[in-house]
């Protein structure tokens, strides 16, 4: 298991260095002068240019610039926003909990509905349940989620007026951000109705963000389950006189979960991409919206830093998933 971890890390480190090269090159690949792009000053005298260039270390050879950058990144310096003049990492850490809260709710919905749906479809293979559930899953899998979000807004916020359209909580509530997670903070604040407000703000975005992972997980669970159900050990379990519930829910499911764990982990990347769209539609103040806004504001330092931070998160999650995979699969653990 320890060797397995080391092997994964050995792959991870070069990948991270590679992504840092991509992020580093990004600014220099953009059309225009990188000094101007990073300082945000459009018009400057040659003296000023030289001054900023020296300040940013951009007058030095490219290789040294890269190692400077990498050194900065490793000590937590991801650059400074051109617009807000704040460190990129600080901004990221302020906004990240909002995205985590949203993604976490979405993945809970996706797993809680997707796995049972996949199991039912596999066990009742070919039945009306199977066809219905898998039909819905395929529609979900094909869904342009930005449109899906707009439809839900039309229906639930426009016509039915059940849920608010934007933001994380109603403006009438104000309390200090202790954890950054609105659901938790609203409970800590003890204000009446705050938690309900936070929850109702969270409902639509998390449904939208969960759509594709939910469909993928349901489809993957079904096919993993179908494969497992035809295995000899499932026949053995039945030959032991176990109840169908135990045969499916214990013997088959435990094995079917091995590939599903990997799928769920891969959905984290899918969700961070989906967060850009979802957060934009619902004005959710998370990192997805932050990155997109930075694209429009030409805040390239933020894009550069955000790119690397998001890639680092995805790589970390993938590492955790690999370890989990080892834990659920005894053949790797031993």
């Amino acid at each position: 298991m320890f060797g397995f971890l080391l092997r994964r890390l050995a792959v991870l480190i070069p990948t991270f260095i590679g992504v840092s090269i991509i992020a580093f090159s990004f600014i220099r690949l953009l059309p225009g002068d990188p000094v101007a792009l990073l300082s945000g000053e459009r018009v400057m005298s040659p003296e000023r240019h030289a001054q900023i260039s020296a300040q940013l270390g951009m007058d030095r050879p490219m290789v040294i610039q890269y190692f400077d950058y990498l050194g900065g990144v490793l000590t937590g310096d991801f650059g400074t926003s051109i617009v807000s003049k704040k460190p990129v990492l600080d901004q990221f850490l302020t906004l990240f909990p909002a995205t985590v809260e949203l993604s976490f709710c979405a993945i809970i919905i996706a797993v809680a509905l997707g796995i049972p749906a996949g199991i039912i479809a596999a066990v009742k293979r070919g039945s009306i349940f199977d066809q219905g559930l898998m039909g819905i899953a395929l529609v979900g899998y094909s869904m342009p989620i930005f449109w899906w979000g707009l439809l839900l807004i039309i229906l639930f916020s426009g016509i039915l007026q059940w849920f608010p359209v934007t933001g994380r909580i109603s403006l009438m509530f104000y309390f200090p951000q202790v954890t950054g997670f609105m659901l938790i903070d609203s409970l800590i604040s003890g204000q009446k109705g705050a938690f309900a407000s936070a929850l109702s703000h969270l409902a639509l975005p998390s449904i939208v963000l969960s759509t594709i992972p939910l469909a993928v997980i349901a489809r993957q669970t079904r096919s993993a389950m179908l494969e497992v159900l035809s295995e000899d050990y499932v026949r053995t379990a039945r030959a032991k006189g176990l109840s169908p519930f135990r045969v499916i829910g214990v013997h088959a499911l435990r094995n079917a979960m091995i590939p599903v764990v990997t799928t769920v982990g891969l959905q984290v990347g899918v969700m961070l991409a989906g967060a850009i769209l979802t957060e934009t539609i619902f004005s959710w103040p998370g990192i997805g919206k932050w990155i997109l806004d930075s694209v429009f504001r030409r805040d390239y330092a933020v894009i550069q830093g955000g790119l690397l931070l998001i890639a680092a998160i995805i790589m970390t999650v993938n590492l955790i998933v690999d370890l989990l995979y080892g834990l659920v699969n005894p053949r790797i653990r031993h």
Partner: protein
Amino acid sequence: MADATLTAKAAEPVSSAQMRRQMLKEFWFYFSENRGAVIGLYVFVALVLVAIFASLIAPHSPFEQYRDAVLKPPAWVEGGSWTFVLGTDPIGRDILSRLIYGAQYSLFVGLVVTTLSLAAGIIVGVIAGYYRGWVDTIIMRLMDMILAIPSLLLALVLVTILGAGLNSAMIAIAVTLQPHFVRLTRAAVMAEKSRDYVTAARIAGASPLRLMFRTILPNCTAPLIVQATMSFSNAILDLAALGFLGMGVQPPSPEWGTMLAEAREFILRAWWVVTFPGLAILITVLAINLMGDGLRDALDPKLKRS
């Protein structure tokens, strides 16, 4: 007796054309058994025809602004008229005509992006899988990097570098999709490489190039075809997403995602300007995914038995 006829059959030389026809027939048999896949195929063919004959089918120009018919609802809704079947947008353009022309963008981008990423992915994947060693390591680390960045974020970054527009959107999407082909081809090549028929071809003196592309690759086509259909639908979704974010095809082009972006502020006033472009995306992507599922089932020998 049954054995005797079998041997007799096997002894007859089977031409490759005959075999191909036989395989195609068998493939169609399994594919056509899947009702959804056949429906998907019909819808897809219809969409291709719509895209090709857009100028003949569309009742209006996609750009003409009917100033006296702004935000007309669809024909069957009160206040609508059959002149504008699906209504008009905020500046009086016919939505149906724009959707018809929009099919051209989606299908064109799907085709180009899939071809690009498939071709690049196969070449890189075969090289990685065939040569292994440091070439393989470098290629796979590169692919890991691309996969470590969410596809839409990477596409956004690339479009920022290349400048918003159709061409840069296509390149950006192709870059994000191609690692899947590389991984798939590499895995298939590695699995096939150790088979006896490859060893036999190598002993017979086949050149590495011939071995890679003539001997090994044709045996890896099934998963590649399935991945290609998935890439096709993903490309359409990604193009629409980029368009929706304002970083794809630029207005006034009638691209479906761009249409949605332009209509966003009217969602609570005129549901049709938002509903129909999205529905067009959904139907197209769904049809392709239905076909993809059918292809997968028909090509996957593991599922064939049942």
